[in-house]
């Protein structure tokens, strides 16, 4: 089976063609760099995304946050729910850990803004 993907690792957005057999990646073409191949393999076996969103702050505002590594794609909305239940105390600095190891993904949710 041939699967067509767009590499999202960098803004170049290479069009990838992945040859698959029984969930196994046989070959990847169209990638302008090795990261594209890795992306294609991950995307076909266990797709992941970095989640960027905001969390409430104690003063009723919001602070921008992200997962410090990519999390399984299917957990995005569960992670959103957990982040939206969190209230961040102020002040907060870029890189401060807001939630550790969110949903056991190994990713920490960290602040991306100083407030």
């Amino acid at each position, binding site marked *: 089976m041939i699967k067509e993907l767009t590499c*999202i690792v960098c803004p170049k*957005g290479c069009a990838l063609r992945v040859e698959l057999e029984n969930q196994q990646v046989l070959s990847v073409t169209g990638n302008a760099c090795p990261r594209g191949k890795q992306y294609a393999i991950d995307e076909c076996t266990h797709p992941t995304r*970095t989640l960027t969103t905001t969390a409430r702050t104690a003063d009723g505002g919001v602070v921008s946050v992200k997962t410090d590594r990519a999390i399984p794609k299917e957990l995005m909305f569960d992670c959103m729910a957990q982040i939206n239940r969190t209230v961040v105390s102020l002040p907060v600095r*870029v890189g401060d850990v807001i939630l550790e190891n969110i949903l056991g993904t190994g990713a920490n949710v960290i602040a991306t*803004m100083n407030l």
Partner: protein
Amino acid sequence: MKEIELVIVGGGPAGMSAAVAAYESGISDLLIIERDARLGGILQQCIHNGFGLHRFGEELTGPEYAWKYEKLVREKQIPFLPNTMVLDITPDKVVTATNATDGVFQIKAKAIILAMGCRERSRGALNIAGTRPAGIYTAGTAQKYVNLKGYMPGKEVVILGSGDIGLIMARRMTLEGAKVHAVCELMPYSGGLARNIEQCLHDFDIPLRLSHTVVEIHGKERLTGVTIAKVDKNRRPIPETREYIPCDTLLLSVGLIPENELSKTASVTLDRVTGGAVVDQDRQTSVEGIFACGNVLHVHDLVDYVSEEAEIAGKNAAAYIRGEAIERTEINLRTDGKIRYTVPQRITQKKDVTVYFRVADVYRNVTVKILDGERVVYQKKKPRVAPGEMESITLNADQLADAKELLFALEVK
């Protein structure tokens, strides 16, 4: 009147990086004037990642990218005035500004760097028939509400325009629990990056309706729905394809315009295509000592390129202040229409020059050619070029030779 060697108008990515570059080139008498309460400009609300791969080799969010530069500004103790609005700039470089503590005041500068950025086109809404209810926002305004204020502008959303901000907001609204029914794009292709179509639309099964536009707005107080329709080759809506979508929110992502009101007061010559100043390779405008960089000059796809351009402006503003004598030449860069514009538009010095350009349409199997009359200065084949992707070519002094004018052309098979 207060005198300052270098005044930078705007404390976004362009202003900060120009200031740092000028400082590193020996200018310590400088000032950044910023209209907002903090530095960072539009990056503050661009909380998604994808910034900085070129510059820093890592993927950063907008606020993190801004912070990298703000840290440098703070470390070098480069002065900046927040909450201050520049009202006027004269050709002899007098800056009039105002804020709540100092009132209206003037500064005489030796050089000025324009870094005011761009604003969103709102025209997309003006030519749509129907009522004028609440619930219609530019994508950037919605982005500010959601990401900086923590308010959701609505729950059932249609987006007009598939520029990157529109795509990013489709994902953002979806993550926060809204339903994005469609992203309509007038053109047969999206103006956004392929990766954003993938990770913002496909990931969430949001339909991208190419060659579609919003033809009617419904609702009295609040938006209740929009009618969309397919457009023909001439971008005219086809009546039989009209389709009603109930929604409470319409976001417009229909383009960005460089914000050049101040450049006009300074009598800076503007380029009709870019909407920004006409500049030379140093990013100096038609007014000596006034430089421009970032989105005020032309709309960039990547902030990394904004920083790069701002460094050029900062370094050369410093050289101008030091009064370095340079041998001048004059080469005008022209385009054939398929290539819409170049930045810079003129070359005034024979040195390595990187020229950025954008094309007018999606073309396949093309040859980019630079011609000095009959002489082919440069040519390169490309499998595909698109308006959404800025291209660049670096020319060296030898290639420039004795050219008076260079034509940037696209040969389409």
